[in-house]
């Protein structure tokens, strides 16, 4: 019985020692995994910011008003900067949370850009159409004014010429 107890204790001690030895390896692996995960989230946030900017650019080129969206994107950029700072300090959870916030804000900008483009396109088309109508109207009126106005002026001019000739004679 004593020998059995001794063997059991030896085995349990050995198992404990093995577990104790490999525990730091797991910790290191966990840390590296956290770092990779955080870096990956920050890289994704970086890409999201780029896409959001390109979408803003497209909306502006279509004539959209992007001033509010620029402010929103700049807040996302500030969050991105804080996320990188948190990563440098080893605050992985905070960095991931901030990176996710950046992605969410960038997606908001993307969605809003689409509606801004649609509205801008519509307004642009309306304005363009109005400009064509106005210019065409003025041109037609001017041509009409020339023919009608000239006829009226010509008859008035000739009448005046006749009166002054009659007056002289």
């Amino acid at each position, binding site marked *: 019985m004593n020998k059995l107890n001794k063997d059991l204790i030896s085995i349990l001690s050995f198992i404990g020692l093995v577990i104790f030895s490999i525990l730091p390896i797991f910790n290191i692996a966990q840390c590296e995994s956290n770092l990779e995960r955080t870096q990956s989230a920050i890289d994704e946030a970086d890409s999201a910011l780029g896409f959001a900017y390109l979408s*803003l650019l497209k909306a502006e080129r279509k004539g959209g008003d992007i001033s509010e969206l620029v402010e929103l994107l700049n807040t996302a950029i500030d969050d991105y900067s804080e996320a990188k700072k948190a990563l440098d300090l080893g605050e992985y959870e905070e960095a991931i949370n901030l990176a996710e916030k950046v992605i969410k804000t960038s997606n908001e900008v993307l969605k809003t850009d689409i509606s801004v483009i649609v509205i801008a396109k519509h307004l642009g088309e309306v304005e363009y159409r109005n400009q064509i109508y*106005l210019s065409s109207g*003025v041109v037609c009126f001017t041509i009409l004014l020339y023919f009608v106005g000239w006829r009226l002026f010509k008859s008035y001019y000739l009448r005046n010429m006749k009166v002054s000739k009659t007056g002289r004679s």
Partner: protein
Amino acid sequence: MNLDEWRLVFVSVCIVIILVACAPLVMALSPRREEAFMTLALLGENGNADQYFSDDDSRIEVGEVVNWVIYLHNLMGEVQYVAVRLKILNSSMLAPNTISYNPSPAPIIYEVRHVLTDNEIWMHTISWSIDAIITSTHVNKIGIELLSVNNRTVETSILAENGENFRIIIELWVYNEKLNNFQFGWSYDDEIYCAWNQIWFNIILPV
């Protein structure tokens, strides 16, 4: 004036009215192109091109805080996503090359990004200090070991003879839509332009 002369006047007035009416339409179809560019400057703590250092002395002590302002003006005609990158160099390290449009190969110690609308002026304050130096009496070189910029500490290993002729460089990087990434400088009309600035300083050895 005779009738023919009056007719000429009528025709001229009508032509002028037609041209004036069509001008907005022509301008809308062919917008005027202006040269597009960005301006980058590094200003003193009051936002002017002076007082870069206290008492205008470019010799700074360890722990002394220096405040500068990065000034940026977007005249590209549309919104721009920019990154301003700070680097620290000595006199022998390569600065940005404005002929080959290559940035300095020195590592980035600080980066700030911003989206600027057309014609927007943006100013960003940076507060930096040297937190730790390394000295080597053998070769008379002093190196910057730790540098803080806006409360972010960075390790560096830049050495300079007698602690003289260090420089901080700022480079302007602009997001390129074709590359989907930042590039040093910007493209306009198939040409590349770049902007960067530098300020030299020396370190006062601690007594």
